[in-house]
């Protein structure tokens, strides 16, 4: 048994009387190398740990919860955090729906997120990979004038969740990625683009993939003009489609639904999207970089259908939001008392990106989204974001465009999906990506 698990059990064991205690301990180490102009610009090697204690007090009209967290694991820090969590709980409002998770008998999926090859690379190998990434990006196209940062990152993390109600789990994972931000230059104009390669260990990463991606994304934007203002079909590539799914997911959180902050509230069983649209949240799928055997409360991860053939089938819940909704947790507690989707994927369609461009004929490809945090309101569904991308003419990619906005509403966009690609890309973050084409989008440019 690990040291942190022992510590967590000891703290949870201090629960007495009408009190429950839940302890989450996370620890990890990471290496970060950034290359710039042929030498190492930054090298960071760090280990960190932190724990969060929640104390629940049962009372006549319900329970109260207080939280405290700290980055140190010494006895003094632990005692201070526990005292603060207890104090915090006393000032909360009693609420009949508040509760910690109880073991629900669902077995956690056996997924191993630790690469056996994680330690295969030496520090010198990691540095060389970052340097090679910068070289390959510069050398791959004469128009690349600058590489802002070529970075190698890997990390190993472990977490433990223990509660006085019998939750007692430990998970571990490893991960690594390469990222490179390139600036292409031609005729006095700069354009930027970044490339990525992701894996569970450094040895799985591809310098070529990351470099090629950054080169294509920066050079294809050279000569960009404002798009003509129009109403047309927008084709989101795998990266921007992943961002779009992440935005929509907020409205599928059971917590947002029970609080009346979702435009999906009360609409289960209704048609909310095009027939081809089937969305699941599946953190048990090991191909997804957000996969994990348990949720933030220590309950087993499970596959949850959200939208099936365009019909809204359900929401995701943690223990408290499920109690408010009169249902059971779906294993969707995130850290920090938040409920949400964890590992989204869309059922693939039949065509790849190029085939979808041909079918669409006339439209616009969305390569990057800007202003998502300010231009999308997941409560009202209003959607207006800045984009860069390419025009589609005669079924072919045409001129690059910038300083363009696209606007619609999330509700309407889901119904206006006209094609979904078969080109699923397992991106880091909440949602896997694949090509999605959406019609009747307002494009504002010149």
């Amino acid at each position, binding site marked *: 048994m690990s040291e942190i698990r022992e510590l967590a059990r000891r703290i949870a064991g201090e629960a007495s009387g009408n009190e429950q205690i839940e302890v989450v301990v996370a620890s990890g180490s990471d290496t970060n190398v950034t290359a*710039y102009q042929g*030498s190492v*610009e*930054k*090298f*960071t090697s*760090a280990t*960190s740990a932190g724990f969060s204690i929640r104390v629940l007090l049962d009372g006549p009209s319900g329970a109260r*919860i*207080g*939280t*405290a*967290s*700290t*980055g*140190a*694991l010494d006895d003094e*820090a632990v005692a201070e955090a526990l005292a603060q969590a207890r*104090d*915090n*709980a006393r*000032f*909360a*409002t009693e*609420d009949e729906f508040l509760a910690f998770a109880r073991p629900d008998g669902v077995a956690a999926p056996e997924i191993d997120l630790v690469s056996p090859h994680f330690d295969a690379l030496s520090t010198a190998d990691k540095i060389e990979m970052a340097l090679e990434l910068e070289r390959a990006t510069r050398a791959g196209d004469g128009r690349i004038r*600058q590489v*802002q940062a070529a970075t190698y990152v890997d990390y190993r993390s472990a977490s433990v969740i223990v509660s006085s109600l019998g939750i007692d789990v430990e998970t571990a994972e490893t991960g690594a990625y390469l990222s490179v931000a390139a*600036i292409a230059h031609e005729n006095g*104009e*700069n*354009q930027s683009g970044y490339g990525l390669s992701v894996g569970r260990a450094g040895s799985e990463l591809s310098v070529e993939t990351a470099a090629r991606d950054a080169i294509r994304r920066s050079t294809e934007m050279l000569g960009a003009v*404002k798009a003509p*203002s129009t109403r047309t079909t927008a084709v989101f590539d795998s990266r921007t489609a992943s961002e779009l799914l992440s935005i929509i997911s907020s409205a599928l959180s059971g917590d947002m639904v029970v*609080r*009346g*902050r979702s*435009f999906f509230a009360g609409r289960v069983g209704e048609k909310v999207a095009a027939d081809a649209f089937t969305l699941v949240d599946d953190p048990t799928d090991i191909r997804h970089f957000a996969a994990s055997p348990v949720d933030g409360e220590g309950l087993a991860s499970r596959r949850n259908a959200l939208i099936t053939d365009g019909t809204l089938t359900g929401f995701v819940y943690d223990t408290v939001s499920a109690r408010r909704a009169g249902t059971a947790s779906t294993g969707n507690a995130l850290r920090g008392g938040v409920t949400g989707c964890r590992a989204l994927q869309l059922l693939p369609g039949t065509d790849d990106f190029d085939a979808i461009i041909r079918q669409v004929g006339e439209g616009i490809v969305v390569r990057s989204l*800007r*202003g998502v*945090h*300010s*231009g999308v*309101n997941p*409560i*009202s*569904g*209003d959607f*207006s*974001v*800045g984009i*860069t991308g390419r025009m589609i003419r005669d079924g072919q990619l045409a001129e690059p465009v910038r*300083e*363009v*906005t*696209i*606007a*619609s509403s999330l509700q309407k966009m889901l119904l206006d999906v006209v094609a979904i690609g078969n080109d699923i890309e397992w991106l880091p973050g909440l949602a896997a990506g694949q090509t999605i084409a959406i019609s009747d989008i*307002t494009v*504002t*440019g010149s």
Partner: protein
Amino acid sequence: MATDLLLEPDVIDAVLAVAVANGADFAEIFVEDTRSTTTTMDQRRVEDLMSNRSRGAGVRVIVGSTTGYAHTADLSLAGLLAAAEAARSVAQRQSGGATVVAVGAAQVHAMRAEIEPSSVDRARRIEVLRAADDIARSHGGAISQVQLSIADNSRRILVANSLGLLSTDHQVRSRLNVSCVASGDTGMQTGRATLAATAGFELFAPERVAETANNAARQAITKMSARPAPSGDFPIVLANGFGGVLFHEACGHGLEADAIVKKTSIYADRVGELVASELVTLVDDGTCDGEWGAIAIDDEGAPASRNVLIENGVLTDYMWDYVRATQEGRASSGNGRRQTYQDLPMVRMTNTFLETRDATPDQIIADTPYGVYVAALGGGQVDTSTGDFVFGMTEAYLIENGEITAPLREANLVGNGPDVLARVDAVANDFAMAPGTCGKWGQQVPVGSGQPTMRLTGMTVGGTAA
């Protein structure tokens, strides 16, 4: 009193000596002890009370153009020496490099906070939330939900380096957020307002709490009758305050020396050139007392200062941190900031604002036959290599025949930095600042943005109406 320091001077000297032992040019230790609390209320229930303490140190070693960094939560001598050894692993030389200058007497700083948050009972924070909740709900039945949070952050830092610097700061910040949802036949709309300052609990004076709650409720209700924003290029009048985020995005990030030194900014090599309308004088000033981005020293120990970036349209200077300033043989401008001890510092803004001119806000609106009046902005985002940026209008109205008329639904504005700076054609005399959070390469820091009411001759509004 020595116990006021987060680390004893002899420990600091020992750590710095180990950090430079492989022949480094510079070594630094940054120590942080931050306590923060957040209390949230939703539908009148006090839901979450959270306390956090983050305490640790980061050791930075620079050798040539390479930086090594390691951080630890273990502030014992052994823990700090281990971090120093990890950070210096980038230095391969066995001799030469810097000689450590023993740290001198500490320069102790503190931002003004009359009531230190840790002295405030939890019940008093809850009273503030209840007062704001009552005021928001007094706007009537259309307000279906009120969600609030009150937060404070008391951050003590110590910076010492091999040049002999030893400096500390104590930065106290307090914040109240009020979010309202208005519901009706047209769906749900949201209103949001924030009261935030580099200050203690004294910030939450009843009249300021009331103003914040009133603004959030009024915004949500107003938007219930909003029509879709237009789509196209229109004159824009920006209300005073957070409109300053326009300058933060349109050119602020492009004036940060990391983008300048790497020549990835469109503003590189352009000092002395006319880059904006002559009405534009842009300043970044970490010393603005009480503002959200105020600091006494930056996270490299440099004193905050007032830096004029653009004067009457002419680019005068960039913002600098230690690394970039040293590369260019000049002094830091006090803009080296980091989110926590776990992060390397980089060039960041503090309080960035446009200076006032003579017009009045009423004149500017009256002189605008047709356009969009932006009363509140959400965040924005910029690509510094092209200057292309967006920012979101969270409260906006049409201007018709020189008068503010119909409210508009949320939409983004898009523009290009240099282009928009040239389009400033009126600036008023009603200066105001607003708080914000700026994200860059994954690090969030508090910043202030400010400007008087001003007009742009045209900008692209990304609405859906024809």
